[in-house]
């Protein structure tokens, strides 16, 4: 059993729903008890979807368990087919149905419906939502294209003369993070390079579109969380190469263009950055100097977290002080990136552990999911959301991609906006005791007053010590002189905890019993900022 207060991902059948809800002509029948229909509201409320997701549930209750749930499954499938006339039927089960073992997939296949019926295996007690989406998309593509794969050794026909290279954009999905706008942005970017988008899937695709996937020259794995298995299979079966760079940030967008060029056989060296790509100049602009070395904690799905770390460090000049993901399937990528930034990777789906690690790292900015937004709010640290799980606010009315050049513009605005601006920060550092303009206030452009979530300094710095026995023991050996304690309060709240710990470590290592103002500054000189 795993104690869970809040979870980053739903069960795997939610992933299957997201694939079905992304597409046209695909319907999912879920063998699930009454109550599991709650998940419809993710689509109708979070994404503001204007139609019900294409999912029909058996909604069995106790009385059906005593009778024949298999009949209920078949009746549900039949009435779903009659009512919605889907082109493809997916059959899945939720956690409870998995336990009663009705084999709805086999039942459905035995019904002789005149359409493809694909049973899904969604192990609810070992797997989670993203895995379910990845698996469902793969089973769907494989199920429809399996029979059409060329014989081994048969080579792809060459692209007709004069036809631009064509790419499939794979991975955008319902309830994904900014997928809608990323697709538009990447389509525009590819057009600039001279590449046409052939099929986008699963978002907006029909089964007929999936059948056209092999016609493209290559695939772009835009969201590996949804599409890496599918891309791999298409590569193996149809010889379509996969573009793996995810164009999040300026550097990655450049790498993406270069990779697309290599795969498509296009010389991209002459492709200039468009003049509306403002992020590089904004970041070089002197007013951004204050961003240098800002301590940033990053947590999200692996793709967005790893990309955010690169943007933060290479394109905004931040210091990455934490990097992690809730997606164990992609832990390797995050571990590799964390090594590069010299931080301990955090691979967990335990919200409480993430909260403890954020508090411990004393970041000045948190880039995370909606969950980290709450953590940051409680700790009084600014935050920007970079990844699913999503919330209604992650579906803005305006165009706000994350990928490509416009995406980089959006990243600059969204990450920098929550921070206090340069000169304001200086003033606060200089006159720390101003009663109405101090570091417990929110940045002036974000409204007045004290941020309600901002925890008093003592709590922020004391917490990690209390929870970490090693440090607690060290700290108990030394005491703070009252003047030193006063002086400590003059240090900005977001680095105060670190200053306290460093000073205590410095004192302990040197056998200093009482920390004085002198010790504090000695430690500062020793450790640097």
């Amino acid at each position, binding site marked *: 059993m795993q*104690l869970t207060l809040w*979870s980053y991902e739903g069960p795997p059948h939610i992933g299957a729903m997201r694939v079905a809800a992304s597409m046209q002509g695909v319907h999912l029948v879920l063998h699930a008890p009454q109550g599991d229909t*709650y998940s419809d*509201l993710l689509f*109708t409320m979070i994404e503001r*979807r204007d139609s*019900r997701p294409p999912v029909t549930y058996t909604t069995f209750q106790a009385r059906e368990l005593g009778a024949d749930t298999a009949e209920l499954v078949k009746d549900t499938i039949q009435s779903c087919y009659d009512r919605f006339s889907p082109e493809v039927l997916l059959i899945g089960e939720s956690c*409870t149905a998995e336990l009663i073992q009705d084999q709805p997939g086999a039942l459905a296949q035995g019904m002789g419906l005149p359409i493809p019926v694909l049973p899904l295996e969604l*192990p*609810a007690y070992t797997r989670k939502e993203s895995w379910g989406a990845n698996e469902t998309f793969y089973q769907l593509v494989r199920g429809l294209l399996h029979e059409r794969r060329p014989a081994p050794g048969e080579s792809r026909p060459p692209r007709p003369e004069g036809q631009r290279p064509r790419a499939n954009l794979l991975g955008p999905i319902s309830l994904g993070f900014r997928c809608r706008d990323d697709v538009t942005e990447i389509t525009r970017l590819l057009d600039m390079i001279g590449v046409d988008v052939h099929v986008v899937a699963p978002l907006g695709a029909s089964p007929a579109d999936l059948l056209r996937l092999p016609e493209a020259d290559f695939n772009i794995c835009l969201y590996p969380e949804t599409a890496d298995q599918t891309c791999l299979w298409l590569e193996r079966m149809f010889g379509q190469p996969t573009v793996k760079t995810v164009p999040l940030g300026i550097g990655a967008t450049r790498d993406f263009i270069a990779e697309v060029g290599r795969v498509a056989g296009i010389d991209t060296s002459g492709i200039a950055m468009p003049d509306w790509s403002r992020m590089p100049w904004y970041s070089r602009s002197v007013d951004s100097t204050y961003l240098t070395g800002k301590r940033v904690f990053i947590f999200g799905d692996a793709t967005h977290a790893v990309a955010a770390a690169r943007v933060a460090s290479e394109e905004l000049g931040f210091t990455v002080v934490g990097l992690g993901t809730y997606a164990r399937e992609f832990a390797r990528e995050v571990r590799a990136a964390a090594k590069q930034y010299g931080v301990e990777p955090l691979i967990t789906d335990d919200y409480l552990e993430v909260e403890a690690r954020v508090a411990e790292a004393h970041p000045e900015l948190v880039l995370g999911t909606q969950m980290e937004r709450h953590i940051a709010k409680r700790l009084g640290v600014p935050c920007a959301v970079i990844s699913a799980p999503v919330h209604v606010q992650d579906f803005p009315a305006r165009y706000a991609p994350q990928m490509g050049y416009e995406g980089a513009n959006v990243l600059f605005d969204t990450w920098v906006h929550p921070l206090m601006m340069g000169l304001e920060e200086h003033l606060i550092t200089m006159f720390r005791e101003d009663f109405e303009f101090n570091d417990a206030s929110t940045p002036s452009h974000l409204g007045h007053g004290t941020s309600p979530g901002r925890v008093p300094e003592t709590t922020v710095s004391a917490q990690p010590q209390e929870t970490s026995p090693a440090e607690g023991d060290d700290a108990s050996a030394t005491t703070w002189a009252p003047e030193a304690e006063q002086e400590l309060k003059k240090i900005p709240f977001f680095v105060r905890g670190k200053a306290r710990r460093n000073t205590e470590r410095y004192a302990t290592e040197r056998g200093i019993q009482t920390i004085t103002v002198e010790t504090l500054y000695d430690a500062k000189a020793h450790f640097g900022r």
Partner: protein
Amino acid sequence: MSLVSEPKQGGCALPEIARERGQRQVFCGLAGIVWLHRKIQDAFFLVVGSRTCAHLLQSAAGVMIFAEPRFATAILQERDLAGMADCNQELDRVVADVLERRPDIKTLFLVGSCPSEVIKLDLGKAAERLSEHYSGRVQVIDYSASGLETTFTQGEDTCLGALVPRLPALPSIERSLLVLGTLPDVVEDQFRRLFDALEIGPVHFLPPRQASELPPVGPGTSVLLAQPFLGETARALHKRGATLLTAPYPFGVEGTLAWLKAAAAAWGVAPERVDEVAAPAVARARRGLARYREQLAGKRIYFMPDSQLEIPLARFLQRELGVELVEVASPFIDRQLMEHELALLPEGVRLTEGQDVDTQLDRVRAARPDLTVCGLGLANPLEAEGLRTKWSIELVFSPVHGFDQAADLAELFARPLTRGALLQV
């Protein structure tokens, strides 16, 4: 069951109820935790279930209570099911974790779910064992909120039902009024003032604000239901000797007056005295309702089955605001507890028990009502078809009982219409 009934109005036959079976678009009883954990301030709700249960709670609760929830899920995993881990030991470990994190908790509810029921995990035994282990510090109580057993608000019924055996005995010579069902604190206080003025008392509420302060029950207890979905709890209280007072539910002026009069009758207070005491509140409520009557009269409404509040709310809308009832569907209709409400509904109203969501939506589309009351999964799709909707969940989460909330209740139904008329986009 001994009932103290009000004389039936009109004496006409109860309306016919059509039964429907098919796909249900409702929450399971776990959703009740969303309000129960706020009401009972020293209690923690630990769901023993799957990732789906955790996800449901999170989705139903949304972000409004993100701060520090007094609920969590012990998620069953492969090793629990495969017998590699002893579920009871695992549960003990998780409970220890929870109680260590929240030393302020006095009552721990172990909440059964669909998977825990299917694998026949005996939470009753676990609760007994844990109660003994934490004796003197925490009481551990189990109940089921699984979708197999409970529909949405029925989760409150099973929760409160589990408290009944633990209620202290009311000495046989004493009497008391027990108001049953979660009410917002502000409404509870209003009712308490009215009962005080009528010299009815002592008055207790179930659930209480602290689970460590359970109200007593005994042969001298009269039970008045504030929510219509608590049949099992009412019957359990009856078994402990309490008398059930049946009345319409306290929605709107008429319902609240009749509800108070049921208590008054049991205490030998004349109905005229109730009219007198309630007069200022009644006048206020009527003034407040007049404004919405103008807007709502003649409008056609359709209730999708959801919270079991459908029938009392339909009665209020029809009789006090002149709304026309196209269809009133409820997941489950307890004929005994709905007796007074059903008698107040207009003749020929279409009543449905149960759900087949697709055919109901067909009827909604055919009837094109001015307002459809439905769950969050259906509201936006219907809005996109040009139909105005009211989220039923808001009716469970807002203070809507009693005189001083009558106009607020009407406003909840009027707002989508106002907004529809306002928007030019």
